[in-house]
């Protein structure tokens, strides 16, 4: 069996050798000996070229025709602009008929007011009203322009200097709306890639600011220093290239949502150990805590230059509208330029 296969193989190879050595296959062209194998190679090359020149199969692209787009546009139906109005959406708050002081008038009856954040009772104070009347007669109501374009009145600058002197910081910046103070201050300092460790129970404006800043935000348990320490440890471990990374802790002095006071001396100790900057929102503590009303720094006996950024909405104890942002010199320089140029 094997010998028959061997014989057949030998016969086939003999035939092949003969074919390749056939007379016509021994032509000499331009002095080059051409053997028969060249014809097989030539055939293969032709086959390869033929295959390469074929277009690969792509399903044909058919963009939508005008008629089809018209049909789609006709069929499309939007949702209503607002969802259906339910009964609890129809709630109307009571309308005050006098100033929001400790006693106020609603529907003709005098009621005791536990709703306004009028902590020092400055609503309706004679001196305030006098000063406001004088400045209304001198300056009118509005500033008719942003701070960069003739909207800066000398009283704005005086007020900033006065607040800074009161708190013990080099300078401060006024904002015209309390809510926007925090959610403008945070994106000014925290950019994409920075790390922020914030308390879980911060109020909406801070949460919005954290979202707008696009930094990495890590929350710790509400007012729990152990949890804060763990988070700081974790964040420092994870980010070894700490040189270029800006890190912030965001807390409120007196939490709007729960009423607890943050233990500032603990926080400052942790911040110095792990090299984080602290952003403190003193909306509910300015004018309230501390023996002279300077806020949480006085209450906890922490020197104010250890806190990097302090913001406060003035619509609480100070009985006015707007907000203020203050801090140490480098921070205020940056904030001023960023916000003036923005």
């Amino acid at each position, binding site marked *: 069996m094997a010998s028959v296969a061997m014989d057949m193989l030998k016969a086939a190879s003999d035939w092949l050798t003969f074919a390749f050595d056939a007379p016509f296959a021994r032509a000499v062209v331009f002095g080059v000996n051409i053997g028969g194998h060249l014809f097989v190679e030539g055939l293969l090359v032709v086959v390869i070229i033929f295959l390469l020149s074929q277009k690969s199969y792509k399903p044909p692209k058919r963009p939508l025709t005008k008629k*089809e*787009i018209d049909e*789609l*546009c006709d069929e*499309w139906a*939007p*949702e209503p*602009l*607002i*969802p259906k*109005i339910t009964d*609890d*959406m129809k709630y109307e708050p*009571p*309308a*005050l008929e*006098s*100033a*929001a002081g400790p006693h*106020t008038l609603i529907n003709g009856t005098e009621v005791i007011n536990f*709703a*306004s*954040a009028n902590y020092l009772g400055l*609503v309706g104070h004679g001196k*305030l*009203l006098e000063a406001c*009347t004088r400045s*209304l*007669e001198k300056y*009118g*109501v*509005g*500033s*008719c*322009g942003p701070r960069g*374009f*003739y*909207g*800066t*009145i*000398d009283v704005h600058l005086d007020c900033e200097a006065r607040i800074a002197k009161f708190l013990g910081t080099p300078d401060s910046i006024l904002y*015209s*709306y*309390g*809510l*926007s103070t925090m959610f403008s201050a945070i994106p000014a*300092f925290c*950019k994409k890639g920075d790390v922020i460790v914030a308390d879980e129970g911060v109020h*909406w404006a801070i949460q919005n600011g954290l979202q*707008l800043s696009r930094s990495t935000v890590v929350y710790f348990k509400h007012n729990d220093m152990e949890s804060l320490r763990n988070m700081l440890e974790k964040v420092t471990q994870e980010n070894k290239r*700490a040189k270029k990374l*800006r890190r912030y802790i965001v807390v409120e002095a007196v939490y709007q949502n729960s009423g607890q006071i943050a233990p500032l001396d603990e926080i400052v100790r942790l911040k110095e150990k792990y*090299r984080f900057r602290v952003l403190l929102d003193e909306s509910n503590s300015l004018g309230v805590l501390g023996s002279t009303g300077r806020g949480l720094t006085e209450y906890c006996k922490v020197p104010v230059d250890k806190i990097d950024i302090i913001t406060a*909405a003035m*619509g609480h104890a100070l*009985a006015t*509208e707007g907000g203020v942002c203050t801090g140490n010199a*480098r921070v205020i320089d940056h904030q001023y*330029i*960023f916000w003036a140029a923005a």
Partner: protein
Amino acid sequence: MITIPYLTALTTYFSYGLLFVFGQFRDFFRKIADWWLGSNLQGYAPICLGLEDFYTRRLYLRIQDCFGRPIASPPDSWVDLVERVSKDNNKTLQRTAKISRCLNLGSYNYLGFAAADEYCTPRVIESLKRFSPSTCSTRVDGGTTTLHNELEEVVANFVGKPAAIVFGMGYVTNSAVLPALIGKGGLIISDSLNHNSIVNGARGSGATVRVFQHNMPDHLEKVLREQIAEGQPRTHRPWKKIMVLVEGIYSMEGELCKLPEIVAICKKYRAYVYLDEAHSIGAIGKTGRGVCELLGVDTADVDILMGTFTKSFGSCGGYIAGSKELIQYMKYSCPAHLYATSISPPAAQQIISAIRVILGEDGTSRGAQKLARIRENSNFFRSELQKMGFEVLGDNDSPVMPVMLYNPAKIPAFSRECLKNQVAVVTVAFPATPLLLARARICISASHTREDLIKALEVFSKVGDLIGIKYFPAEPDKQQQDDGRVKLE
């Protein structure tokens, strides 16, 4: 569409290039100085790294004295500017006690309500005594007074919608309302030159944002058709809702929006229209009701009307006007209503009184006079500037007129020269405008008299010749030379 001559474009690029190179040199020396002196940051990362604030430090600070000028009087037609000096080459500025009285062409005082007004101010002081400067609470927690309710009714009547809601600050109105109206799965199509507050609100809402070319209804239609046909990105599901954001007067161009065409397109494709009338409410239209009145668009066709009170009414705050259900929903869901202190009662009274004056309900015709005067003043000033050869943007009737400067060196030159001649102007550059298209923006007020405007024109002519910003030939009928110009948008 602004066409910039070749030579000007080249010189502008060259100037910016030179400033950039100088800035880099100074940064390099600063780095060496810092290394030499040793840093005192003790392991904290610096607040600003590298090129993040390069523009602010090296370009903006050089001309800082042209911005943020403090005033010592109300921002009326003539204003007292406080002079400032700098001892360290414009890095910091200190106030002096000197005051110079200048013609104010920069404040948004369209109807002249900036200073104390004979009808408004007594009423404002009365409401100050009654309600005190602040309510210290949010609208839902005892911060709503009868004054707030009255204000919302008056605003709704004035604008021509069933109901309105008022917030304490104009910028926040846009940023807080857009996320409440539209969210993920929705599409926002906004004009390419919309204001920063609209852009922020659109980004914060989470919806997909597409842009259409400034004031071109054809392009808007094209974008709408494409987007409806394609659906949401990647899943191709149909969009939940589509909102188109436009402004009444664009503050950097002075142009009016092409509202009738845009509203027609949005009706055809069932998209919602959001109109921001910050600069146009109170300033244009026969009775001051804004761009809808001027262009003859029915207010029922525009779904959401937004505006601010800072400009024409001399107060502060913003409003949203729409159907009763929309406003009820806003009061339930908008965070600026639920968490922010309510608008100051004296400011609210100022708005109510200003609207009464405009409508003539105070018994005089001062409102109608103011409206007529601002229209006359704007048209007169614009035509005179164009006759002198300045390149002025904007449509007729619009009180905002930008004058092109282009080169970065002309910005402080124009501002300082005008100040020497007792005229206060506002100059705007990057990033509020594109890099090459720096301009000076003039805002006309109803309290400017004809003599004021003529004086301003004389000063402009003198300064314009000195600086070289008369890009067009000074002829009575405007002729544009089309050869050798580069079209820029």
